[in-house]
């Protein structure tokens, strides 16, 4: 039980990072972006390539942090990856979604997002191959924190948990203490009113893509650290991300963070009672329950 709780919180915190970008874009641009999960995969693979490039610069950068399989070069690579993924997300919007929202309806954008997702997934497969891989071939041993009830934690998992908490705190400070954060909240709640109050909508949309892409990249690196890199990791996460966004309430940044934790916990705890084969169905069940009990989500506004 304790182990499932920890695993659920860990996976949930990764999902939260991915769901925040999804919910922002879904609310501001009024379309479900099914390619958002691929940004997670992109971020993870960018970090893989950048890690190799950065570690080639100096042998000291390959030094692993104490007790972790994470090297200094991987941390630098992750920082570069979040910038690169954010910029790429904004570029995809400029090249594809911006044109479609000017000339076509939301449904066209949804189908386009499926297309982009397919392209990104297959390009990753073409470049990196279809086999799974890891950032480090070192074996990370779990520490037994408690034997009864059993709780095994890898140091890398603690690193992931601390990193996601720090990122969420930084995001919280951004949206509650800075005028740019207020503007982002305003645009996510009511784009028209935000413009009336002097906010440049196009700039905020770019910022939302940049932020969403960057958070997805961090989620991708964390997911790959906890599991492995695979070209289909985005596809595997897409339903959980939507479940998190819907449970939290579309448009709510805090809702997405909470939704991610709920989905992670529910998926993990469900394994105590149902066979593993049913695990992929959990996001569906959570979406159905959320829509039945609270159609606007936990923190979503009535529309």
């Amino acid at each position, binding site marked *: 039980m304790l182990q499932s709780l920890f695993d659920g919180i860990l996976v949930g915190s990764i999902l939260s990072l991915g769901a925040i970008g999804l919910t922002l874009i879904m609310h501001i641009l009024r379309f479900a972006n099914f390619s958002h999960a691929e940004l997670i995969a992109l971020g993870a693979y960018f970090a893989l390539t950048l890690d190799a490039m950065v570690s080639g610069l100096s042998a000291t950068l390959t030094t692993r942090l104490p007790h972790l399989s994470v090297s200094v070069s991987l941390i630098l690579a992750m920082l570069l990856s979040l910038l690169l993924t954010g910029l790429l997300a904004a570029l995809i919007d400029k090249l594809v979604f911006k044109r479609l929202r000017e000339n076509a309806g939301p449904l066209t954008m949804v189908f386009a997002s499926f297309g982009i997702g397919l392209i990104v997934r297959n390009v990753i497969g073409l470049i990196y191959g279809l086999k799974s891989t890891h950032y480090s071939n070192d074996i990370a041993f779990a520490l037994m924190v408690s034997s009864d009830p059993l709780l095994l934690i890898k140091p890398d998992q603690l690193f992931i948990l601390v990193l996601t908490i720090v990122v969420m705190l930084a995001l919280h400070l951004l949206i509650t203490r800075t*005028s740019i954060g*207020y*503007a982002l*909240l*305003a645009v996510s*709640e*009511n784009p*028209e*009113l935000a*413009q*009336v*109050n*002097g*906010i*440049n*909508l196009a700039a905020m949309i770019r910022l939302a893509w940049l932020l969403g892409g960057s958070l997805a990249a961090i989620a991708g690196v964390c997911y790959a650290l906890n599991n492995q890199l695979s070209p289909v990791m985005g596809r595997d996460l897409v339903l959980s991300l939507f479940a998190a966004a819907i449970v939290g309430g579309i448009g*709510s940044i805090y809702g997405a963070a909470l939704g991610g934790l709920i989905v992670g916990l529910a998926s993990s705890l469900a394994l105590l009672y149902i066979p593993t084969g049913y695990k992929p169905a959990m996001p569906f069940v959570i979406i159905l329950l959320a829509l039945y009990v609270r159609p606007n989500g936990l923190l979503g*506004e009535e529309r």
Partner: protein
Amino acid sequence: MNPQVLNVQSISAGYVRGMPIIHDISITTEPEEIVCIIGPNGAGKSTLLKSIAGLLPIEQGHIRLGATNISGIRTDKLSRAGVAMVPQLNNIFRTMSVEQNLLLAARRYTGNRRHRLQHMLAVFPVLDEKFKAKAGSLSGGQRQFLALAMALLAKPHLLLLDEPSAGLSPVAVDEVLGMLRSIAAEGVGILMVEQNVRAALPLSDRAYILADGRNQHEGDAQTMLNDPVLGEIYMGARRAEAHAAKPV
């Protein structure tokens, strides 16, 4: 010297290009003047306000703010240039606090924002009392005060109001509309769309009647209020309802 704060010349606009909802409409507003736009549902009143605020594209004609042609300028730039708007519905950010709403709106003001904010809190003392409260928890009248304060924080030249009395209690209607004359007295031109004709016309200087997306009539608000023909056409339904409600 252009005495008009707003000069709308023969504009046509709508939500879909090539399918205008308003046609060839011309309207002016002067500083310290309250101008009311009335008309039946679907007449294009809100479309007109959104077009002036830059939220809808104009297909023909032009709009001047003072001497500046503002046709086609982005809404956020217009709001910084002195055009403030209070939409009819969802005119505050409900998930944010009163403080956050006001700070967000104050970003447009180029002077001392803290002083301007203090001034607004003095004008609307109820917002000072509810400063830390979530905006979504305010009553209808308080929300309208917050929306007005947000619009006025930037010291606009022109204030566009879309049905400011909609959904308010009679007491709140009096409170909100009662503020407009003192707002106009600070040099602001007010262009207001209002269904509540009997409340809005007495405090307006001039009025325009829109129907089927076109200017049907314009003139002095008091004259219009007392005009039996216009009253019959545009306020007749209300009179008939009142008549029908009387016991026989």
